[in-house]
């Protein structure tokens, strides 16, 4: 078939997965811990303690798979506003976009939920060559653990060495979390971000409550 025809063949499918009207986007969406009603817990529960927890619901999360050529790197940088971190276990942030190194050919991108489709389509238009960008926003959620004992809870839950000498701010690891898994990033000395899978989020929430008991767990809305 002629090149003209090839042009028309749809190579990949990208579709907006959010309701058209922004009203619905918010009224209909339920994050994995929606049923827990963290807002009420925040009011009723402890107000002081060694560990603070909150969910950052309904963010946009995308998995980028690529062996970027120089050309692709430049294109991706202009698309994300930040260059792909090529150093293992590092991350880069620009505005509300954060890119985490997951493996030599995989990155996890987060941004505000309603911008995911836009990013997908811009990749579709601008990025040539072999790559895959997959929206996983519905299958993933983001937790934040902070406080003076946050690191202890992480040490109970993973085998990672979180000493600031070897785990500075912005470092990212994918690892086991209790009997599930998480992608963990250090936000500052006492703040950590956990990206976890939807179906495991209840388990991880239960685990965190249990492991935090001896320090006191504060839920932040």
């Amino acid at each position, binding site marked *: 078939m002629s090149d003209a025809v090839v042009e028309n*063949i749809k190579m990949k499918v990208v579709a907006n997965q959010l*309701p058209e009207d922004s009203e619905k986007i918010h009224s*209909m969406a*339920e994050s994995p811990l929606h049923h827990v009603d963290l807002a009420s817990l925040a009011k009723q529960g402890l107000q002081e303690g060694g560990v603070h927890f909150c969910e950052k619901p309904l963010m946009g999360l995308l998995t980028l798979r690529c062996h970027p050529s120089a050309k692709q790197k430049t294109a991706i940088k202009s698309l994300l506003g930040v260059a792909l971190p090529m150093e293992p276990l590092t991350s880069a942030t620009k505005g509300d976009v954060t890119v985490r190194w997951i493996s030599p050919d995989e990155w996890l991108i987060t941004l505000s939920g309603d911008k995911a489709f836009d990013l997908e389509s811009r990749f579709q238009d601008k990025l040539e060559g072999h790559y895959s960008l*997959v929206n996983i926003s*519905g299958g993933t959620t983001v937790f934040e653990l902070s406080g003076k004992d946050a690191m202890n809870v992480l040490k109970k839950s993973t*085998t990672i060495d979180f000493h600031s000498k070897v785990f500075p701010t912005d470092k990212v690891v994918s690892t086991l979390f209790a009997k599930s898994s998480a992608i963990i990033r250090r936000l500052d000395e006492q703040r950590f971000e956990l990206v976890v899978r*939807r179906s495991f989020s209840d*388990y991880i929430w239960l685990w965190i409550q249990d492991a935090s*008991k001896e320090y006191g767990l504060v839920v932040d809305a």
Partner: protein
Amino acid sequence: MTQQNRLVSGGRIDRSETLTFTYNGKKYQGHKGDTLASAMLANGIDVVARSFKYSRPRGIIASGAEEPNAVLQLGATEATQVPNVRATQQELFDGLVSASTNGWPSVDTDVMSLVGKVGGKMMPPGFYYKTFMFPESLWDTYESMIRKAAGIGRAPKEHDPDTYDAINQHCDVMVVGAGPAGLVAALTAARGGARVIIADEQNEFGGSLLDSSEQLDGKPASEWIRSIVEELSTFDDVLLLPRSTVNGYHDHNFLTIHERCSDHLADIAPVNSVRQRMHRVRAKWVVLATGAHERPLVYANNDVPGCMISGAVSAYINRYGVVPGNELVVMTTNDYGYQAAIDWANAGRTVAAIVDTRTESKGDRAETARQLGLNIITGSAVIDVQGSKRVTGVSIAPLDESGTKVTGSITKLKVDTVATSGGWSPVVHLSCHTGSRPVWDDSVVGFLPGPTIQKQLTAGGINGQYETSVALQEGLDAGLQALTNIGLEAVELVLPRVEQLTMTAPMILFHIPHIKPTSQAPKQFVDYQTDVTAAGIEIACREGFEAIEHVKRYTAMGFGTDQGKLGNINGMAVAAKALNKTIPETGTTVFRPNYTPIAFGAITGRHCGGLFEPERYTAMHKWHVEQGALFEDVGQWKRPWYYPKGNETMQDTLNRECLAVRDSVGILDASTLGKIDIQGKDAREFLGRVYTNAWAKLGVGKCRYGLMAGEDGMIFDDGVTACLAENHFLMTTTTGGAAHVLEWLEIYHQTEWPELEVYFTSVTDHWSTMTISGPNSRKLLEKLTDYDVSKENFAFMDWKAATVAGVPARVFRISFTGELSFEINVQANYGMQVWNAVIEAGKEFNITPYGTETMHVLRAEKGFIIVGQDTDGSVHAYDLGMPWAVSMQKPFSFIGKRGMQREDCVRPDRKQLVGLKTIDPNVVLPEGSQGVFDPKAPIPMPLVGHITSSYWSANLNRSIAMGFVKGGLDKMGEKVFYPLADGRVIEAEICSPVFLDPKGERQHV
């Protein structure tokens, strides 16, 4: 009750704080700082146990982890019972309740001891291998008798009220043991800037120094300890762990530490805190400063309460202010033994004699003893002990130079305590855990750590260095070495001055001879807890059990809860003598984790009860719970099994759900199916290689079912894959197989076909999947979307992007029920709301939620297989009667093609999956039933295949089944018989597995 053995002053206990505890129902008092053992001795409690085999009274021998006798039951309530707690390691707390574990009616007067006395001679090592055989029928009776005598403590009957914890640690230097060597090593490393963990099993740091009256820099050792500990606690990167036993030293410098957080406070941990914590440590370098255990000597009746090891006597006096008796005799082969006598005398009680097996000692300790005017008898030994529940006297006799026989007449001494020292055994246990065998050293008279590939250093007693001054120096050296090894600068550290004592060489002696030969002498115990005697070891050797492992297993030596810490070396020495070999020739001893026992709960940590394993939920889980669904565990997922209404039986529910789907419309939460997004120009080629069927021509917008096989040709997964775009596919897998399939795709891509341009991404959790199935499903869908879902515009096995209930969705027109079906996929954050909308819109069609069980029935009516239920890893596509799902013409030899063509895989008489109709339509064959062709055949009967799926079909108003039958595909219409456990033989006819709508018209409407 008064603490008659408590000194008015001295020791590290706090006399101002009195604690009350209970032993065998009686109340006693002790002080803060006591162990249960020291408090018992303070109160003059002699008998703490009855021995395992002979029921002999036993008393406290030691003061630490090596104690074999004082093993008690602890716990004030049923739920907090703890078996087999070593009194020497249990700190005293107010309200502690303890009890001895054996002896009836009581540990003091035990009728079994008579049996022990009489029957004892009938119980040589391995006696049970030699008897209880006749008549064969009585073995069960014999065994129940044996089991009555088994065990020490008991497990609680109620659930554990405490919580446990595990935490992962990383450090540069892990120091094991906080004695003089360990403390200096830790401080050196810490000052050099290393990340340090130092752990010690005792409640406070100091190790041997806590038990001695030694001075450092002219001051009591305790002051030096305090200064070191204070400085250590100033470092951010130093973790101090008292009450923490390093129990296991695993490969690549992984160590496990068992910390007792609250066992010293009460029966049960304070609210919100944990009882015990395991530290899982990964260390760059390990410094073993584990010290040494003193060896008792083996002599006649050496188990009578009042017989102790000399170091323990000193420890009770110096650390706890307790003198465990009035008149002491010491027997020693070395200078250290003298210390017990010196401490005893300084405590103001009578030392009847120091019996030194050597001809003389010129050492400083001996000199001190002389200056105290103590009676020293040389070249002699305590060969026998009088007394039963407490020592009343000893027999002393001269020995020959070699210590092998008694040479002169016996003198008797009236004493109530015997302290013996046979020298020290380095605590090499941890160094053995990774397979390194310890090496015997004659100068040390003990085993030293053997060569190892672990990054391990050793210091102090473990090296056979028992003098504080040397231990301190070795600790410093180890600390400096560790720093160099991890590339850090050493910082200066000045060691304290310690008096260097002169010593006379010890005598190498373990087993004290008796006037009678060992076989006839009174019992000379080697391993107290397992009642192993020197005579017993001689018998084992005589019978040909010559390897030390044989000796240990035949006699049970070292198999107690103390794991032979006191006895093993003595036992080897006795065996060596019997075999007339040296100890190294006899063998070596291996130690395995744990160094001391650990509660199962501590190892379990939080992974119990609700947190034993994750429960995975879909976005609609809450709804299913509210609807009263019962759940089926599929992998870690909780899937709705069925939704009973009112007082329906399970079958009622299934009938209702099944009919609803075929008559109107049902809805299933299919979100748990694995989903993998596949992109890249070679995606299609890749699918062709990993599925058994063809993918080259699958058009955009189309779906196809595929089978996945291993290289052996056997089926391990299946599912529908949709072509989203030319280079873009969405693969679905079984719920349980999702993770495995993704790894399967990755391993082939990464290791075999890296040249193929394709990426795989799991989107299982991203999509909520709800299947609406039944004749009314299209009408229902039409209510929820503006998209034209008519037959013309939306054909079977197509997928479309459409907006459902206001949410963008991917709708697949595929069917696992054989009905008109639509699988609606929406981004999971919208799953619950869209589900609600579908339920709402479905009301007019009486939409019925159905679970996995109904799904299984419906698909069985259509003869669709379920991988894992209708397959078991030993069947290929042809066995399943699915040749249509295999494309032998594909250019690439797909995975499984070659495997399924092996000689055995092409046999015509393989077991093949067929449908089975019971002759009596009302009988449902039990799943798992095994078929035979000839029900009259004798057992063992030739089995021709089993029932994999079997249900009552409400739609067909009869039972249906699928199963394997040898050569079944060519046996349509023939009979198979299923003999059941209840004696019935069910007759069934082989048929096509498609029981309903063979033309597939219903799903094509």
